[in-house]
């Protein structure tokens, strides 16, 4: 009898630019588990995919259908707004919910942080550093960068993004951290989640004289900002959200994307060599028989996220156990420095504790390097030719501060 699992995707909404590769990663990994491992202990996964177009209410409606009608035991989720809206529901229904939202509010599993508006989220998990922690790491790097370049005075920091739970999520944490590090914090600048003409925002940025700007949106709209700012001649170091920069975005933005610093969740990117790459390529063949596709960073993250869930389910199923929500959740706590089998060197090790769902505090920062015209040729060609590169910049190990839990 198959195990029903929900898979919420944004393939058509404003975050579909990153939603598509991520969702593909999840789907391929689960299909691969069915194909090569015959599911979980002989029970196949029945993956119920749903493209919710990045609209939280549609996600909630689908969630209720899944829980009431399909009786799913775990869900691979997506955005921040929907994940946060569902926290109460998944807690009530005891369904592990592995999101692609890395909102720090989801890490406070026991509700101990005492921060206003942060509820306990005992069934929420995600793979990778939280948005807030990633931003904290980037700010630490920015501080070093400022000093290394021998600049005078206080650096100026500005948060940019839509008025939406996802870009808003690390806003407060980032601004607090920036102050702590001695930055001057400028008023935030808004731009929508969809591509558009953001010249006015760039002119504002220029007028403010910002030095470091955080791009809180996903790639699609960030590209517009990068291009507009290049045109407007803005000199600023952009710090990208984890969803804010990737290979596709580099191609689309061209040289405007050159120099953006952003976190990468996996230990390797496509095309690099690592022990786990063989497995990864097998997984990739699920949707690409020819084996020629280039897989951007989000695809890899999707695979890691799905495989964590799979191993937690396997843990639940051990010794003839029932694959139920609470038991899957226990599976997440079963191991320390956990890397899914066969993906060594691809997924970074994570550790979840019953009160602290911050899987990792290590943030690997990379820089996008674009040296020429990106309009001709595929991403794979451009990466191979070196027109586009993703260069490691620094790896920041953050302290697991208790007062950072939950925001």
């Amino acid at each position, binding site marked *: 009898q198959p195990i029903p699992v929900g898979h919420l995707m944004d393939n*058509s909404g404003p975050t579909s630019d990153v939603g598509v590769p991520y969702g593909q990663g999840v789907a391929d990994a689960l299909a691969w588990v069915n194909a090569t491992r015959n599911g979980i202990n002989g029970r196949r996964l029945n993956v119920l995919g749903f*493209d919710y177009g990045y609209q939280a*209410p549609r996600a909630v409606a689908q969630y209720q259908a899944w829980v009431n*009608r399909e009786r799913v035991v775990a869900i691979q989720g997506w955005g921040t707004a929907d994940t946060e809206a569902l926290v*109460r529901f998944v807690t009530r229904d005891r369904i592990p919910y592995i999101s692609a939202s890395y909102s720090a509010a989801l890490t406070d599993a026991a509700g101990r942080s005492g921060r206003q508006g942060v509820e306990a989220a005992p069934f929420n998990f995600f793979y990778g550093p939280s948005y807030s922690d990633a931003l904290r790491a980037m700010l630490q790097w920015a501080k070093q960068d400022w000093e290394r370049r021998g600049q005078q005075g206080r650096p100026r920091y500005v948060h940019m993004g839509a*008025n939406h739970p996802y870009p808003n999520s690390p806003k407060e944490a980032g601004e607090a951290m920036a102050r702590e590090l001695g930055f001057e914090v400028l008023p935030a600048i808004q731009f929508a989640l969809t591509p558009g003409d953001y010249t006015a925002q760039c002119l504002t940025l220029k007028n403010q004289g910002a030095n470091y700007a955080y791009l809180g949106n996903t790639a699609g709209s960030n590209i517009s900002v990068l291009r507009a700012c290049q045109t407007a001649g803005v000199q600023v170091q952009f710090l990208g959200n984890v969803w804010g920069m990737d290979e596709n975005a580099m191609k689309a933005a061209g040289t405007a994307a050159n120099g953006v610093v952003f976190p990468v969740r996996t230990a390797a990117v496509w095309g690099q060599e690592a022990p786990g790459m063989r497995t990864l390529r097998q997984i990739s063949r699920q*949707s690409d028989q020819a084996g020629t596709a280039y897989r951007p960073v989000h695809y890899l993250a999707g695979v890691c996220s799905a495989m964590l869930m799979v191993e937690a389910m396997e843990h639940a199923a051990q010794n003839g156990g029932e694959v139920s929500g609470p038991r899957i959740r226990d599976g997440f706590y079963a191991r320390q420095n956990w890397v899914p089998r066969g993906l060594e060197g691809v997924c970074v090790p994570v550790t979840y504790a019953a009160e602290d769902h911050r899987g990792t505090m290590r943030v690997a920062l990379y820089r996008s390097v674009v040296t020429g015209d990106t309009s001709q040729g595929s991403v794979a060609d451009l990466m191979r030719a070196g027109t586009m590169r993703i260069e490691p910049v620094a790896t920041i190990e953050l302290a697991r501060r208790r007062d950072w839990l939950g925001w």
Partner: protein
Amino acid sequence: MAVMMPAGDYRTSYREDMTIFPTRGSRVALWAGIALLCLAPLVLDRYLLHLLINIGFLGIAALGLNILVGFTGQISIGHAAFFGFGAFASAWAHEVLHVPVALAIPLAGLITALVGLVFGAPAARLKGLYLAIATLAAQFILEDFFARAQWFTGGVAGRVTEPFSLFGLRFDRDETYFYVVLAFVAAMFLGAANLMRTRDGRALVAVRDHYLSAEMMGINLAYYRTLSFGIASFYAGIGGALYAHYLLFVSVEAFNILFSIQFLGMVIIGGLGSVMGSLMGAAFMVLLPEVVQSLADLLAGGPIDRALKLGASISYLREMAIGAAIILFLIFEPDGLAHRWRLIKAYWKLYPYSH
């Protein structure tokens, strides 16, 4: 030109001549229909109930829009914002003012009606598409308000709502909530049908058909133009509130321009100026994506699927199918489902004479 009446159906008083359901058959059908619907939760599975519930609250809101567009002739491209307002208002009334949900829903309808009157005020001066675009502005302004008014809506993060309860009974499952929606649908549709056959309803239609002569018949144009916004918003508010306590979560994202356009689609496809058409239109819009989805599921894995790599593109195909269905429908039935329904009925009455 003379209206056909079924043989054997004589009316002996004006009262009988003025009923909503003109024939005995239609009255019987109505009661039978209601009885069947009451039994629905016992026989239908949750999925179908879920669809019926959706049709119910969307139908109420669509009816409101039909009163505005179909009966009064004022196009609104901002109906979803009012629907949303109702949803937030009900959630807010319960959460902040601690009004019981059963009362919060009608209260939300009233608050939304007031907001509708405010945004409908330009209707007194604007006509046709100018008014339509003004409602488009209302859509964006209200959306912005939802995102900003933390105290009212919970801001961009939205608000979790409580289920409907009455006399200690909780209506938090499809099987039970269905009755709540059914009761509201019945009340709201009867109300509209009654409205349309009395003074103010006629005045609304008169304003649509020929406002200059309506004015000379003593009809206050500004009043009725604004009133129809108020009524439409009331219906939208009730529909939205029912939605809020069904989904148990309200967020600004739902109430976007696309949703407004869907409402417009419902009333046009259902039939402008037809009370029951609104419900038919809502059903069309709810069922269409489901039908497309099942088709896709049927195709999945087949040769067509493999050839076109449908798997990954299914969501686009679904959208395309919805767009195409709307286009095809309107090409073949520009007057809407209600019209087709009337033709079918007329056909049976006149059978076998077609002329």
